[in-house]
């Protein structure tokens, strides 16, 4: 690429045809309410019928010092009239509420993209905090982009002050002013946001009024102010999607709903033991409001108590569920072993984040695959399922519950910070389409006597609720005799029980769907194998490369362990295998180990999702 930067002329800028998809990034201080603005913009986008994907990108600090670069909170949304699967590689529009926000985000903005900046925040002090020597709004350093700036702070004050708010409170409405402007830019209806503000501030109508005034003022500014060329109104047509009822959903919501649905399909009450941890806490929050669905939530004293209480609840006949993120999962590990040994159903949700140790709490990563598949003492097999999107997480949660109760085993459901927080439109499922799988507890001794570790054809042992007449028995973490479950250290017995535990979990492969090719043919030059939240960028990259005539396919794996029974055969049909992962190559290693194939890694460990272009480049290189 040439080093000279072409400066976009106003004519060029306004001559662009109506785009199919637009990426907008809202960036501001942690206290500026950017996540809220993004969330409401998402809702309005969804209501306009666009397909969309979002990427909330916020700091680990609750309130980092104001105006600093590490306190920047951003929300990126990609929406369009075609199918959208990622939050977008590079924003077309950047709304920067202060110098730090500009500094942190402008680098990824598309050349020729639009910057809207609040000049009211570009004081000498704030510029210094962001590390600017000169004001970038004035020194020409932003010339490769289109720049508009006005004093959003002052305009907000002017709009809100007459309502009697103090300076500080009035300035808090800045984000709604900005949202109003964004709504104008994309020709959106303000009413749903007004309704939402009225509901949110039902107890403080003066704040509702002020926020609505700011929203309207921002909208009116777009309509009336003569800002010139770049600030024009766009209309993105509705995306052609399957007809039906839609809503937006985040991964944390859909997992919670899926767990509730799974418990209902299993005819069980649910017990959720959790301990606050980013980014998994949202699941605890959602579930704690669903008491009428037979959900009991318990905020335990630590991660270990959270899983231990869930195991206790499963032992007593409920569906035990726990959830955490990497460091918390590490603490739960011994208890997972207990659930494996006592063969009790349990669902463990891991919302992965950057690691190791505390790592990057608010950033996304897929680096807990080894932990999920291998990370326990002893031969301790456990099924692992990975969700690939917020909507997919609903079905994955139901599947995790089904496997847990049908095989009497803990199941780990992998999601990540990106899926947990990102929102996407979700076609509301028809619950009548889900086949119930009611649990049958053992209620009386079989004719040949009760054996707590007797097995059915799937190698599942019976589930007996304490309180059942005539079936008192003892279980525990010590190795047990085949069938009776009595303590037994005999060498042959340990060999037999270890093999049974292994075979039971491997046998699950016969009770889950075969692996399908997500996009492309079942054989060819190159296959991109992914899992989890890399679905969007992989899918788009493969689609684009196929449109260019490249022989490339996409396989996305939901069942990480055991792997689908036909996967080895499928992979054998391709000359090359490329595995993009947000880790240093964990699925790649498993695939090599299981199938002796030359799976090649493509790794990104920056805490940010893959960009489509990065995967496209890797495809081109592999096929060169």
């Amino acid at each position, binding site marked *: 690429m040439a080093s000279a930067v072409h400066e976009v002329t106003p004519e060029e800028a306004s001559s662009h045809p109506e785009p199919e998809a637009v990426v907008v990034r809202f960036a501001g201080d942690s206290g500026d309410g950017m996540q809220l603005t993004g969330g409401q913009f998402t809702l309005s986008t969804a209501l306009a019928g666009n397909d969309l994907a979002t990427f909330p990108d916020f700091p680990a600090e609750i309130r980092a010092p104001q105006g600093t670069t590490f306190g920047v909170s951003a929300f990126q949304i990609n929406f369009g009239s075609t199918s959208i699967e990622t939050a977008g590689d590079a924003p077309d529009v950047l709304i920067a509420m202060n110098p730090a926000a500009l500094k942190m985000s402008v680098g990824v903005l598309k050349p020729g993209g639009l910057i809207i900046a609040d000049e009211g925040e570009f004081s000498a002090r704030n510029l210094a905090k962001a590390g600017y020597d000169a004001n970038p709004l004035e020194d020409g350093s932003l010339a490769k982009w289109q720049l508009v700036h006005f004093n959003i702070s002052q305009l907000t004050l002017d709009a809100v002050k007459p309502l009697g708010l103090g300076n500080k409170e009035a300035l808090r409405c800045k984000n709604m002013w900005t949202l109003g402007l964004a709504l104008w830019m994309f020709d959106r209806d303000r009413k749903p946001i007004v309704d939402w503000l009225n509901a949110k501030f039902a107890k403080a109508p003066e704040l509702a009024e002020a926020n609505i005034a700011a929203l309207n003022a921002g909208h009116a500014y777009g309509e009336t102010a003569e800002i010139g060329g770049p600030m024009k109104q766009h209309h993105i047509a*509705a995306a052609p999607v399957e*007809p039906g*009822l*839609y809503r937006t959903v985040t991964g944390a919501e859909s997992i919670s709903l899926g767990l509730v649905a799974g418990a209902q399909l299993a005819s069980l009450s649910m017990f959720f*033991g959790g301990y606050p941890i980013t980014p998994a806490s949202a699941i605890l929050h959602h579930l704690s409001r669903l008491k009428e*669905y037979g959900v009991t939530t318990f905020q335990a*004293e630590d991660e270990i108590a959270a899983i231990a209480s869930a195991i206790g609840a499963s032992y007593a006949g409920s569906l035990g569920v726990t959830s955490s993120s990497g460091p918390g999962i590490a603490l739960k590990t011994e208890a997972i072993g207990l659930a494996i040994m006592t063969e009790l159903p349990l669902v463990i949700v891991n919302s992965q984040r950057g690691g190791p140790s505390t790592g990057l709490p608010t950033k996304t990563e897929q680096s807990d695959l080894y932990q999920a598949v291998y990370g326990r003492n002893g031969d301790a097999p456990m099924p692992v399922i990975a969700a690939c999107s917020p909507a997919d997480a609903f079905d994955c949660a139901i599947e995790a519950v089904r496997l847990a109760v049908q095989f009497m085993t803990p199941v780990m459901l992998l999601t990540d910070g990106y899926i947990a927080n990102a929102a996407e439109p979700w076609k509301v499922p028809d619950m009548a389409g889900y086949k119930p799988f009611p649990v049958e507890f053992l209620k009386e001794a079989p004719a040949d006597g009760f054996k707590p570790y007797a097995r059915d054809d799937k190698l599942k042992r019976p589930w007996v609720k304490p309180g059942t007449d005539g079936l008192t028995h*003892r279980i*525990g973490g010590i190795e047990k005799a085949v069938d009776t479950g009595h303590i037994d250290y005999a060498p042959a017995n340990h060999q037999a029980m270890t093999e049974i535990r292994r075979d039971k979990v491997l046998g699950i492969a016969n009770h889950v769907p075969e692996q399908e090719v997500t996009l492309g043919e079942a054989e060819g030059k190159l296959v991109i194998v992914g899992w989890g939240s890399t679905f969007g960028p992989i899918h788009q990259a493969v689609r684009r490369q196929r449109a260019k005539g490249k022989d490339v396919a996409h396989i996305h794996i939901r069942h990480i362990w055991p792997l689908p029974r036909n996967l080895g055969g499928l992979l054998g049909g391709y000359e090359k295998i490329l595995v993009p992962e947000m880790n240093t190559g964990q699925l790649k290693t498993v695939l090599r180990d299981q199938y002796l194939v030359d799976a090649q890694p493509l790794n990104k460990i920056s805490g940010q999702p893959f960009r489509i272009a990065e995967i496209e480049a890797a495809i081109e290189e592999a096929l060169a």
Partner: protein
Amino acid sequence: MNEMTKIGTAKDWESDQEVRWCPGCGDYAILKAVQRTMPELGVRPEDTVFISGIGCSSRFPYYMETYGFHTIHGRAPAIATGVKLANPDLDVWIITGDGDALSIGGNHTMHLLRRNLDCQILLFNNEIYGLTKGQYSPTSRIGTRSPSTPFGSVDRPASPCAFALGSGARFVARGIDVNKKLPEVLKAAHAHKGAAFIEIFQNCIVYNDDVFAPFTDKANAAEGQLWLEHGQPMLFAGGSKGLRLNLDHLHLEIVDVVDGDWQSVGVQIHDIANRSVAHMLVELPFGAFPMALGVLYEDPRPSFEQAVIAQNRQIAEGKIPDLQKLVAKGQTWQVEKQPRVE
């Protein structure tokens, strides 16, 4: 179910498993005391769950003909919390030791007591790690020589009952493995609604033999044991000595009682609901004072699982669970057959 018909005899509460503690271990006596007591409690073995952590004492559930769960080190209180929240009708007993409950599981013990989960916690205190072959424990006295402290331990021991009271326990009692009063203490614990904490002094014959002999030996019992009873004066040494509350310095002191006239010397009457005096009783330094035994403190409060259930019911009341409505909650939009094009 008629409670009186199926409770059986001690034999009915014994499992068919061979008991495997060291010969002479205090655990045998506690097991017998529990098995003897269970038939008198009016509960069925099928509704009873014994939950333990790891350690010698934690083998206990295998020997009871009830439901039993031998879990992992220190976590029995957390497992029990899940069991009780999932099925509050179960009668839950936690069997633990000084290492299990106060070292690796100290956090869970504290929170179970604070929350006041309805269960009985039997802490077998032998002041040593038996199962791992004799290392000193969090209740071992300073100077305890063990494989890991060959020159004597230097850290101060925890006092189980003081820990329990400090954690918010509403029932705190002490018993001795071989003492015939243990069943009465167990019954009182079972009758208490909420978390009932019992420290049982248990002799480890192999690694810490006779560590409690200064008050458990027959010869020392009279002077060394103060058995408390609600509404009765705090007397020991055959009634020749008693405890009096020194109001100037707010501590207990020993007074001589002549001819049974405890009133004139102001011997304190045990009021199990008096939390301040309970704090003094659990802190009495043994040696200068006898060991306070029996129910030291009891003052019930609503239990955790009942509060959870009450709130679950109250919030769920009048709401009809409808999965279809739940998944369609929030702001929704309908996509028509043809996408909207303008």
